[in-house]
């Protein structure tokens, strides 16, 4: 269970989250909202990348401020730009990089990397330079690189923004089939069809919280109202 208790966050003078209280326990949670609504900050709070200016975030009993390292072992994070996330020059090396401090032998690392690459359709690219992959393959690599550590929760911040429709669907299918709990921040409402719970953010607050269809309808209405204002 992830709990946000009276969480507020500011960047300088600008308040990006205002007094948010949430309990997140569902397997599939979506977060939507306009640009600047605070959804990316909310996502970053969940694995301790950002610690709140006020309030606290607790992941399965661990405070993200005090136990950041342990939280990050539980909660993996995927960004919208895989180029910023891929660290090593080749595909297999990048996946192996995530395991460097897991106390595994070289043979165990090799086996886990091979299994992970196979699972995400990258087995044939193990020794390829990462920068030569397509955008879709890069995002799959970014996902594989964090999933190889077998986290319990995966947070994705707009992982399909830079992808075409086919690659976007591929990532969506992958996310749908994961055994992990997933928190997905996205502008692509199609991705959230059928999801258990969707939060709608507006000006740093959660303004709607419910099943996907209900929240998305609220979000559409919110956007059409703000367009006519």
């Amino acid at each position: 269970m992830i709990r946000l208790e009276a969480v507020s966050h500011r960047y300088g003078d600008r308040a990006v989250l205002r007094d948010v209280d949430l309990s997140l326990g569902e397997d599939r949670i979506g977060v939507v909202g306009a640009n600047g609504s605070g959804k990316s900050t909310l996502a970053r709070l969940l694995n301790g990348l950002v610690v709140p200016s006020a309030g606290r975030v607790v992941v399965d009993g661990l405070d993200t401020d005090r136990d950041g390292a342990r939280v990050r072992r539980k909660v993996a994070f995927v960004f919208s730009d895989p180029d910023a996330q891929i660290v090593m020059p080749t595909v297999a090396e990048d996946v192996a990089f995530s395991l460097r401090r897991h106390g595994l032998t070289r043979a165990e690392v090799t086996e886990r990397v091979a299994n992970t690459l196979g699972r995400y359709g990258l087995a044939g690219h193990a020794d390829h330079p990462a920068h030569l992959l397509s955008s879709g393959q890069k995002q799959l690599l970014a996902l594989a690189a964090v999933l190889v550590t077998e986290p319990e929760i995966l947070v994705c911040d707009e992982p399909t923004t830079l992808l075409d429709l086919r690659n976007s669907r591929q990532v969506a299918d992958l996310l749908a089939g994961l055994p992990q709990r997933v928190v997905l921040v996205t502008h692509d409402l199609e991705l959230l069809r059928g999801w258990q719970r969707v939060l709608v953010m507006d000006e740093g607050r959660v303004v709607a919280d419910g099943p996907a269809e209900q929240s998305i309808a609220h979000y559409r209405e919110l956007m059409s109202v703000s367009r006519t204002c």
Partner: protein
Amino acid sequence: MLTGTYRPGTSALHRAGAGRKLLGLLVFSTVLVAWRSPLTVLLCFAVLIAGYAAAGLGLRTLAAQVWSLRWIILVLLPFQWWTGGWRAAVAIAGTLVLAVAAAGLVSLTTRVSGVLEVTTRILQPARRIGIDPDRVALLLALTIRAVPVVAGTFHEVRDARRARGLERSTRALVTPLVVRTIRHADRVGDALAARGVDD
């Protein structure tokens, strides 16, 4: 060297440890410099061709490793010939070309992770003076990884400048390139933190 141009293979050179290959490169370069002469260049060239052949890499691959030196050689060769005669010209230009080609051979047959492991091992004593070998290795990896990213950004910015009809504006090239590179570095920092590098 270390450009992340690894070509997968199963040759003896591919299988050899990164440490041995780097030591070999050091010995090769030392011989070239210490016994600088056209004969040394010729012998080292033969050794290098044998090395490329043993790794299953052809002459074309060898040429590609040194192609970027063509302008330097074009200036260096006649200058050295003029100041020191043909022997000095062949020895100096040949030394440069062969050293780069040898480094290319090591790059082509060695995974970057192998080189980073060696770097980490070599730097272990530096812990005593506060240098973290893992950090140095990570820095190397990030530098190698940044080359294609910054090159891609450069091409995008150059195209954008052309699209706006500002082909001659240096500011239209440098400003967005620097801003985007810094922003990329920022995102990489976030991603490393998310992957627990600081933990």
